[in-house]
């Protein structure tokens, strides 16, 4: 790569030319934003440092793939449908970027991931984890939700959890637990089809240094 390429990459906010090794599919939400912006007659200043689709300031939208692993089921036995470490490598975030939105998306194979018997609910908890993959002791969950049915795609807003816009360092580790709650007694398999879990990704919107300077002015 010649000096011109390095200068151009730097002007695009990249320290080096990316060389993706196993690029995955482009999330539909990014295609939607991209195409909407292309059709905009004259994208004015307001769009430049704002992501209208999420109503937040920002000029960089990233989707991080989950690099975590399934964890051994803990207590109580039999009621836990899923326990997984979610691990996101955030080293791509540059110095000076300010986080304006964080959304976790859980995706399931089936259109609905439901408990085996009526009257039961599925409880979802998300904890901040140590890099080793264990919930930090005594910490209350970042997110706690109950569902009668889980849809194919479940967005969870983490913005409040990642406070004051500071990007959570070079990585983010969370433990996801889905368990069967409600009055269920001890049915045979409380979780219904537990192979419904498909994947997780983390969408971050940040305000890059240039936009931050422009907003400051």
């Amino acid at each position, binding site marked *: 790569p010649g000096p011109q390429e390095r200068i151009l990459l730097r002007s695009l906010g990249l320290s080096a030319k990316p060389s*993706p090794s196993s*690029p995955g599919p482009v999330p539909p939400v990014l*295609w939607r*934003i*991209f195409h909407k912006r292309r059709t905009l007659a004259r*994208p004015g200043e307001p769009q430049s*440092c704002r992501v209208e689709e999420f109503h937040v300031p920002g000029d960089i*939208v*990233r989707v991080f793939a989950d690099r975590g692993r399934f964890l051994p089921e803990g207590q109580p036995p039999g009621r836990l449908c899923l326990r997984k470490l979610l691990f996101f490598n955030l080293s791509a975030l540059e110095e000076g970027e300010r986080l304006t939105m964080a959304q976790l998306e859980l995706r399931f194979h089936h259109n609905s991931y439901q408990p085996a018997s009526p009257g039961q609910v599925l409880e979802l908890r998300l904890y901040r984890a140590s890099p080793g993959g264990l919930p930090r002791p005594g910490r209350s969950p970042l997110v706690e939700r109950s569902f009668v049915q889980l849809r194919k795609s479940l967005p969870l807003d983490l913005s409040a959890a990642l406070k004051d816009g500071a990007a959570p360092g070079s990585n983010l580790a969370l433990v996801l637990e889905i368990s069967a709650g409600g009055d269920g007694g001890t049915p045979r398999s409380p979780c219904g089809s537990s192979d419904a879990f498909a994947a997780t990704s983390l969408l971050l919107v940040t305000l890059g240094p240039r936009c931050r300077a422009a907003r400051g002015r």
Partner: protein
Amino acid sequence: RSPPSPPLTPSPLCKPRRLYISFSDVGWENWIIAPQGYLANYCGGDCPFPLAAELNSTNHAVLQTMVHSLDPQGTPQPCCVPVRLSPISILYYDNSDNVVLRHYEDMVVDECGCR
């Protein structure tokens, strides 16, 4: 009969000129998802005396063309530069295979002027 129309010669006056940037020409197609290229354009042409109104010029540029017409060696013509630009968004893979949608200001020349 009207005289034969003069051959279409590109106007020498300052205006946007076509420039297509193709990312595949610079070997970036493996990490840039979209667009694979875009019309960036550039400004080219003269800013002669008297400066026409549509050349989107400043009072200073009008004065400078006047001085240039009196003293071509001493004072240059004003420059033909972008006066209005638009942003584009680029969708790409970063080094960790994450998908990034990034918005870049001032990437397309919409309008030129004499400054």
